[in-house]
């Protein structure tokens, strides 16, 4: 009898150790697992100043639905909220990874999609929303800007949504909901001139209508606390005690003029050879969505409301106040410094 409690204790210690290791490993993964040498501290002030002034004039236009009543005040409203905070020097112990973060817990589910199906409630498959608590089919930048958020930091009023995960037909919401804003994916000199994401920008990443896990699939499934399982475009079998997780990187090159496009994708592009292509010349932070679900085991029990695992996609409606976004891009992204939710190292 005496050996039972001790083996349980050992197992608990083992599980706790695995958990700590898993979180550490996944944080490393989120940071792209590479150390970027410090950037030249030059340019950060000037590039962010340029960014702040360039976005209001850049915004307010939306291509194909040219007559779409995009509120013209979209970008100017947030710009007047607060002047940028003065820049602090880089602390000696700063981690030299270009990153800031928002933790945005689940808020609600609705069969709505204000980007793809604006004002058509009930027209979509079920979506799980994070961050802004008000998002529905009728949301626009004005309504979102007046609402509240579950994000840490609270100032991030952005809305994030994904198809709902169903396990045995029942919705399961992620308990880990981290939205990283990263400077990786482009050369360091490009990172140094990354501009803030314009206020009101809408981005859709992933392929909701994928019919197979092919090279159009940008999302990845893996297991938290079980790195040996490896990443896959479709659901993976995560061992008991671990969590299935979804990684999705959003495109980080903007065409510099449109907050949205007819297909909700063509105003954005992924980088090519470490730089933004001439068609989409403005580098912006790369949004990396990491969702961890309290589910594991046989993936035959899993389905997304949009279909199989490879149909994972994410929608992002940027409602960061401009000054908050600009300060983080200046201090964390351009300087290649890892910041937390408060936007400080």
């Amino acid at each position, binding site marked *: 009898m005496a050996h039972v409690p001790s083996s349980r204790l050992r197992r608990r210690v083992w599980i706790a150790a695995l958990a700590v290791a898993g979180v550490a490993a996944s944080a490393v993964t989120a940071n792209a697992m590479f150390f970027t040498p410090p950037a030249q501290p030059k340019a950060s002030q000037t590039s962010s100043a340029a960014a702040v002034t360039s976005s209001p004039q850049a915004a307010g236009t939306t*291509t*194909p*639905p*040219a*007559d*779409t*009543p995009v509120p013209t005040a979209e970008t100017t409203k947030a710009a007047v909220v607060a002047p940028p905070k003065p820049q602090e020097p880089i602390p000696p112990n700063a981690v030299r990874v270009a990153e800031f973060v928002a933790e945005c817990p689940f808020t609600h589910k609705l*069969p709505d999609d204000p980007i*793809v*199906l*604006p*004002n*058509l*409630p*009930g*027209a*979509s*498959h079920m979506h799980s929303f994070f961050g802004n608590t008000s998002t529905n*089919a*009728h949301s626009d930048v004005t309504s979102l800007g007046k609402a509240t958020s579950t994000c840490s930091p609270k100032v991030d009023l952005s809305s994030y949504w994904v198809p709902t995960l169903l396990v045995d037909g029942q919705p399961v919401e992620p308990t880990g909901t981290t939205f990283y804003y990263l400077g990786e994916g482009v050369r360091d000199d490009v990172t140094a001139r990354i501009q803030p994401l314009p206020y009101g920008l809408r981005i859709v990443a992933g392929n*909701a*209508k994928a*019919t197979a896990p092919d090279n159009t699939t940008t999302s990845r499934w893996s297991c938290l606390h079980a790195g040996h399982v490896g990443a896959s475009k479709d659901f993976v079998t995560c061992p008991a005690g671990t969590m299935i997780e979804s990684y999705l990187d959003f495109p980080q090159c903007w065409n510099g003029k449109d907050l949205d496009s*007819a*297909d*909700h994708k063509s105003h954005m592009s992924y980088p090519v050879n470490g730089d933004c292509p001439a068609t989409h010349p403005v580098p912006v932070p790369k949004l990396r969505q990491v969702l961890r679900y309290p589910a594991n085991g046989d993936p035959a029990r899993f389905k997304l*409301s*949009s*279909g199989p695992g490879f*149909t994972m996609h994410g929608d992002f409606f940027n409602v960061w106040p401009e000054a908050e976004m600009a300060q983080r891009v200046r201090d964390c992204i351009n300087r290649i410094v890892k910041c937390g939710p408060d936007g400080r190292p």
Partner: protein
Amino acid sequence: MRALLVAVVLAAAGCGTPTGSPPPAGSPAPDLAATDLAFVDLLIPQNESTLAALALTSANPGSALHPVARQVETRYRAELAQVRELLARIGRQESDQHDGHDMPGMITAAELATLAHDRGTAFDQQLKALLRSQFEEARTVARAELSSGTSQPVLELGARVDSTRAEFLALLEGVQR
């Protein structure tokens, strides 16, 4: 109806006079807002996927759903022609963003594959269930268009979708099998 639609679109797009030049590619007529376009983008795959399911009735000559299927096919094809004409008039490419999408109101490839194997009563029951949810979802989306859309021809289409799906639902419930 179609002549009226064309006339409305022509007038709205300013193309009614011989000297009027067609709108430049990629710039929609001023009367189609994002909601109208989203409604049209959704209607196309909804109708197309339903037509694909209805085509399977040809392999089931004894199906009690033939009369309903023919009526629905006629209506859905007419709507497809109408929205494609509308998109062409405003110089907008037909969006395929929902093609193959697993969305409410669309009959998925997996559902089609299952239906293709069904025969007799099983076929009718399955097709009836698929059509019922399709019609109901089409009404939901049409009503949303009616409350938030702005384009007159699209609003008229939405009203027709709402009323015809109600008629089809009644027809469907009347089918004894």
